[in-house]
């Protein structure tokens, strides 16, 4: 067939006659050149756009009539690559889209948790601790004040909790319990950081001043987060899901890309809360305390929340009070088994 040949040195097109023979592309302009088929960069078949053949000497063969090129390529025995055949078929593209959705779902459901398991196994405890300590020094700087609780009260809670941890056979889990006064918006709250730092706010101790066992229940819940390394896991899982969402949508709109990441994280942390609740219940039982003390806590939280709604607030932004709803959790701690 004939097409335009640009030799790579001049912008002037020369008519060229091309054919395939003995595994070589023959290009006849004012002279005849041969290029081994494998050394030529062939265009991929596509419905739109021009066909350009990149020759090893820098010359470009250009065919503006793509249908004519495709017919020639087929007749000359040039075969499309598997990927090109896949891309040019709507059925193939549909299968790819379904596989992609299945992949995204499996990544969220199994892949990210499995990756988190691996990372948790390989990250040295010292590194995890330093991540937690960094986070603690940052929240200390930004939001927290030293605790105003009496030293004896702190001491008693420390000792009772240590006894509970030992009694429930979790002595191997290393943790550090910190008392802090949080800002008002933080409310009665407790949270665990990667590496085993557990922070308890004064407001929570006061909130449950007549129910010290419930404070221990809250701490046992946080210990559950520490034991299962939820902080580090969540970090890994959310990074993976975020990367996936970013790959699909990122450079168009960060808001759109953020939505699946936020949804996936909500799912993960709900799961983590349930696991920590189970841990809290087992710990309380093993320590000879009744898990039903937690029911009191959730009832009071509900009360607090209702009161706050009247004031124009939606919820108590409490880490322990976050995901699964209070009623469900109250029942969980009240149930006999």
């Amino acid at each position, binding site marked *: 067939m004939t097409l*335009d040949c*640009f*030799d*790579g*040195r*001049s*912008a*002037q*097109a020369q008519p060229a006659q091309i054919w395939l023979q003995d595994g070589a592309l023959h290009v006849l302009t*004012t002279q005849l050149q041969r290029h081994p088929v494998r*050394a030529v960069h062939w*265009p*991929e078949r*596509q*419905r*739109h*756009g*021009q*066909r*350009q053949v*990149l020759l*090893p*000497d*820098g*010359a*470009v063969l*250009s065919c*503006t009539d793509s249908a004519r090129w495709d017919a020639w390529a087929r007749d000359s025995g040039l075969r499309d690559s598997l*990927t090109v055949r*896949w*891309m*040019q078929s*709507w059925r*193939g*593209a549909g299968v*790819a*889209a379904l*596989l*992609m959705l299945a*992949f995204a779902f499996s*990544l969220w459901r199994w892949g990210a948790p499995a990756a988190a398991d691996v990372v948790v196994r390989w990250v040295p405890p010292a*590194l995890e601790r*330093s*991540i937690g300590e*960094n986070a603690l*020094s940052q929240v200390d*700087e930004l939001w927290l004040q030293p605790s105003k609780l009496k030293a004896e009260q702190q001491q008693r809670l420390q000792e009772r909790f240590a006894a509970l941890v030992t009694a429930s056979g979790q002595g191997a889990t290393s943790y550090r319990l910190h008392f802090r006064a949080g800002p008002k918006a933080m409310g009665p709250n407790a949270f665990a950081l990667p590496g085993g730092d557990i922070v308890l706010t004064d407001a929570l101790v006061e909130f449950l001043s007549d129910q010290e066992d419930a404070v221990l229940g809250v701490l046992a819940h946080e210990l559950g987060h520490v034991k299962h390394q939820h902080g580090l896991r969540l970090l890994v899982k959310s990074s993976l899901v975020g990367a*996936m969402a970013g*790959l*699909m*949508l990122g*450079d*168009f*709109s960060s*808001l*759109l890309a953020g939505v699946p990441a936020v949804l996936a994280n909500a799912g993960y942390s709900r799961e983590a809360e349930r696991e920590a609740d189970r841990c809290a219940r087992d710990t309380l039982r093993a320590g000879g305390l009744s898990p039903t003390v937690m029911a009191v806590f959730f009832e009071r939280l509900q009360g607090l929340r209702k009161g706050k*709604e009247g004031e*124009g*607030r*939606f919820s108590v932004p409490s880490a322990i009070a976050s995901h699964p709803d209070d009623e469900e959790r109250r029942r969980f701690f009240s149930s006999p088994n």
Partner: protein
Amino acid sequence: MSDTQAVLAETATPQAAPAAIFGDSHAPTVPMQLEPRELKIQFTGSGSEYFRIWIVNLLLIVVTLGLYLPFAKARRLRYLWSNTVVDGQALSFHGNAWKMFRGFVLLLLLSGSYAVASRLSVTAGIFAFTVMCALWPSLWRASLQFRMANTGWRGLRFAFTGDVAGAYKAWLPIYIPLVVMVAAQLLLADAQLRKDFSAPVQVYAVLMGVSLLTLMVLTPWGLARIKRYQHGGYALADQQTRMDLGTGRFYGLGFKTLGVGLLAILAPAFALGVLAAVLFAGNKMALTVAVPVGVLVGYLMGFAVVGPYWTARLQNMVWSHTASQDLRFDSQLKMRSLLGLTVVNFLLMALTLGLYRPFAVIATTRLRLEAVSLSSEADIDRWLAGAAAQYQDAAGDAAGDFFGIDMGL
């Protein structure tokens, strides 16, 4: 590898060679002045075809855990280039996917250690940030060089001729306040380490505030320098572009965008506030709904109005002032068309969980490319390849992706 070396050798041959081959007795030393002729720019890509390419590429990327990315990118660029038709001839993309793969792996290692460093500790993060800042202008230049050197038209390769020093100088106005910001962070981290709070957070805040303000004030100047450098460095054959556009125009655009932004974000926020006050007077709960809704509306307005306004005006301003000896660009991108397209794209992408994205890419590319026109006074048939096109390492191109930069078109 050997292919590209061969190509390199070819293009580096003295210019006498082509004349000899063509038996062209008039060496093209006397440029002929011709009547200006429009070189029509068309974009022939199709959304549905690009969708199939995209979805298969995406699947291959994820099953190879990202390793297919450079190959997918090469195919994507080849598709877009072969559908960008200038005066009847499409652009050609010459990037070698394997070379791009090498650059990609390098960047992966670099950004991986960057991410780890910034997670580990503040100081390590700042150190990594400083290293990135120091490398950035030269990586940016390398990505421009790679992109241009691998783009061809009528067999001739483009080139980017800006030098390293120029790249650093172009970024200087933006760098100064950035360095101050990093220094402030360093000081704070240091104080935290030593548990020394004698110089309290206020000092840090003031430093941050001042450097942020400086950054805002200097950004139009920085952008002007960056664009002048970028648009002064494109070359094809004997044509070398330049951009004659004063810094004042960039400040003008900055102020106008600020005004548009204030109008677009504040007006609906105000309307929403009034509406909420009237409808839910006395109900404080309504406020908790109104505030996030207001923030969301603000973001959407910024995305749908301010973004397209800025993009369209900047493209028009910059390209309409770009010219070479015989070529003149003109861009007439209508802000309203871009705005409409952006809104439609956003809605359809949200509705289709992102599957609409390739259609959006094609539509946006078509709108932006076809808004540009190009007129030529040269006899293009007489153009010869520039002195020595350089083939840059693909690391620069990968870096360009990493930092999300592009050619401004």
